């Protein structure tokens, strides 16, 4: 019958649409478990056919980027994609780039990365913590391809590096600004939207609290764990919760600029994260944004790959690399209107020291530092090591942490805890 045939065609069309749109859809599916041996044998057909491996460009140095979220997330992945575009703009004559977005972490990622290498890409950049093991495995299999993994800690001696940066330095400065603002407002209270109880987030919140105490010794930092990097409603609610509890500035550690908007609606102040556009939602209520500027590093790494000087290494950059920004304080920028006059020279001065390499993350985490219960965590004269900062223990080739990043700094409200 005609109707039945039409139905069949339509069903096929819908199936096609489903498969096709799954490419662009944010990964709603939970991440698969550890990359398993059965991965190749029992491939999920939908995932396999929905992630299309891009073509390489002949005669150019081809670099592929693997993203965990859509490039339109307005935050982490957006900033990485800006970096990719920077790389194209700088080295477009010699370098061609391609990217894959919303690639689930785990077994899928390993297959995608392997296929990219097989396709002939000269280098693959993977930009989420969960890609670490997959990148390591594929780097072993393809010694002639370069691999860079962002936000992890693994590497090999030849073709596999990791890359991350000391955002804590910028959070420290942001904390100074927030503290000055809260002191001037008389609230003596700021808030921090904390995504997950992991060393990276704890380190950033601690740095903000320590910075805050530099400009406002009586201030306290409130904190809300939201257990997600991206949830516009929840991020806003966390900010509202802290404003309701008396904060006059909220710093966000998650992806959207929602908390800055809430600040504007309440006549208070907010500090964004990740991307330098975060203040645009409400410039009058936004004090600053610590942001990532991946472009220069991408260029540097691409150059080292092309001239053969690339070697597997731990790259953990600080402010002097130029890959970290603080909106309103970088070259050619003006501080936002809400930043108290008194703190501007202080921040500018310390930022200049950071840019010169004279003040780094290790200066921030130098004893004496107490935790929010008043216990001594870092004794006088002790400096935390890189492993301490990253909370690493039991990782081959790295020393274990002795003061692991599982404490909240003095200045954070005494009631606050790190969830288990």
């Amino acid at each position: 019958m005609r109707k039945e045939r039409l139905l069949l065609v339509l069903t096929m069309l819908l199936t096609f649409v489903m498969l096709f749109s799954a490419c662009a859809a944010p990964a709603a599916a939970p991440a698969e478990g550890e990359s398993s041996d059965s991965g190749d044998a029992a491939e999920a057909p939908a995932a396999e056919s929905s992630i299309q491996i891009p073509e390489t460009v002949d005669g150019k140095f081809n670099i592929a980027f693997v993203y965990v979220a859509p490039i339109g997330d307005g935050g982490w992945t957006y900033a990485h994609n800006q970096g990719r575009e920077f790389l194209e703009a700088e080295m477009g004559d010699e370098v061609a780039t391609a990217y894959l977005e919303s690639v689930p972490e785990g077994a899928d990622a390993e297959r995608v990365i392997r296929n990219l290498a097989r396709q002939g890409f000269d280098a693959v950049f993977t930009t989420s913590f969960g890609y670490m093991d997959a990148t390591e495995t594929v780097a072993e299999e393809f010694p002639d391809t370069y691999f860079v993994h962002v936000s992890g800690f693994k590497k090999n001696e030849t073709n596999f590096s990791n890359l991350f940066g000391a955002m804590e330095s910028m959070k420290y400065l942001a904390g100074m600004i927030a503290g000055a603002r809260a002191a001037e407002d008389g609230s003596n209270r700021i808030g921090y939207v904390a995504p997950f109880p992991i060393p990276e987030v704890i380190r950033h919140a601690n740095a903000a609290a320590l910075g805050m105490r530099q400009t406002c010794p009586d201030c306290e930092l409130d904190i809300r764990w939201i257990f997600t990097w991206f949830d516009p409603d929840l991020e806003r609610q966390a900010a509202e919760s802290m404003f309701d509890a008396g904060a006059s500035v909220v710093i966000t550690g998650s992806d959207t600029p929602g908390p800055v908007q809430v600040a504007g609606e309440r006549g208070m102040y907010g500090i964004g994260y990740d991307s330098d556009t975060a203040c645009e939602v409400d410039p009058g209520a936004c004090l600053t944004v610590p942001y990532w500027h991946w472009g220069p590093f991408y260029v540097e790494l691409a150059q080292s790959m092309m001239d053969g000087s690339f070697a597997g290494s731990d790259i953990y950059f600080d402010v002097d690399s130029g890959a970290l920004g603080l909106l309103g304080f970088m070259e050619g920028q003006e501080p936002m209107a809400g930043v108290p006059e008194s703190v501007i020279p202080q921040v500018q001065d310390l930022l200049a020291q950071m840019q010169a390499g004279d003040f780094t993350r290790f200066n921030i985490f130098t004893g004496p530092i107490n935790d929010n219960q008043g216990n001594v965590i870092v004794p006088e004269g002790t400096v935390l090591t890189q492993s301490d900062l990253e909370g690493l223990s039991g990782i081959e080739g790295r020393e274990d942490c002795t003061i692991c990043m599982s404490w909240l700094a003095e200045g954070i409200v005494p009631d606050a805890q790190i969830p288990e």
Partner: protein
Amino acid sequence: MELALLVNLLAAGVRSGTPILFATIGEIFSERAGVLNLGVEGMMLMGAMTAYGVAYGTGNPWLGVLAAMGIGGLLALLHAFVTVTLRADQVVSGLALTFLGTGLSAVLGAPLVEIRSAPRLPNFRIPFLADIPVLGPIFFDHNVVVYIGFLLIPLAWFYIYRTRPGLELRALGEYPAAADTLGINVIRQRYFYVILGGALAGLAGASLSLAITPLWVEGMTAGAGWIAVGLVIFAGWDPVRGAMGAYLFGAIRRLPLDAQNLTFFLKNPTLGYFMNMLPYLFTIIVLVISSREAMRRRAGAPAALGVPYVREERGA
């Protein structure tokens, strides 16, 4: 102190429950007519993206709302065509619609991500009412979409339970053959309610991107559409209970945040993970219930939900 916390909590619940409320009531209309539409999440995303784009382009957020309702209705029309006219499987078509809406809104909305200044729907503090202690801040100091939600609840309830078209609507979902013999055009009416449901899902999206979380970012509904589909079942297809569920859900999201530093409240960090899991849990529940007739009946679903209507065929 505790009272202030409770007031803030409930006010937050009313506020962030509003988009879920619109989507839930929309889905209730659609399912009452006998058509399950799992495309709510996709329609909301398209609505949110369209509303934001149109509001930015025209400078008028209300035009954005209208456009969002239009696009939601249009997507629902597609679903109606596939499921009512072609009698295809409603679950498959609805899921496809969600994928379509999610993907399309991501592609078309890509340039909007960099725009951070589209006009928003205004906040409005209702004079006098907002000054009532406790109730004032909870109900009468909000964005205008929240008040639209207040109006929609009794309207939907009255329409479904107290009007002639409402009776016909219920007949459509319970026993379409009987409705047909009474001269009700089952096909046309089902189209109407599916499209109405889509328009309300579009409104839900617009209320997100222009009022509740005024921004466009990909996937910004973060599962709210699935929550709405699930709520319909827990509400027993009743708009008043659906509304209470939506507000309650908004408050539940806020609760663990407020409670984190309170010593009198049981500190339970896993609550956060649990909340993030809920949209997926709801999806599973919906799929299980809607795929088994016995469970559908026990949950109180319209008897003909998910069943295409074929004239002169026996049964529903």
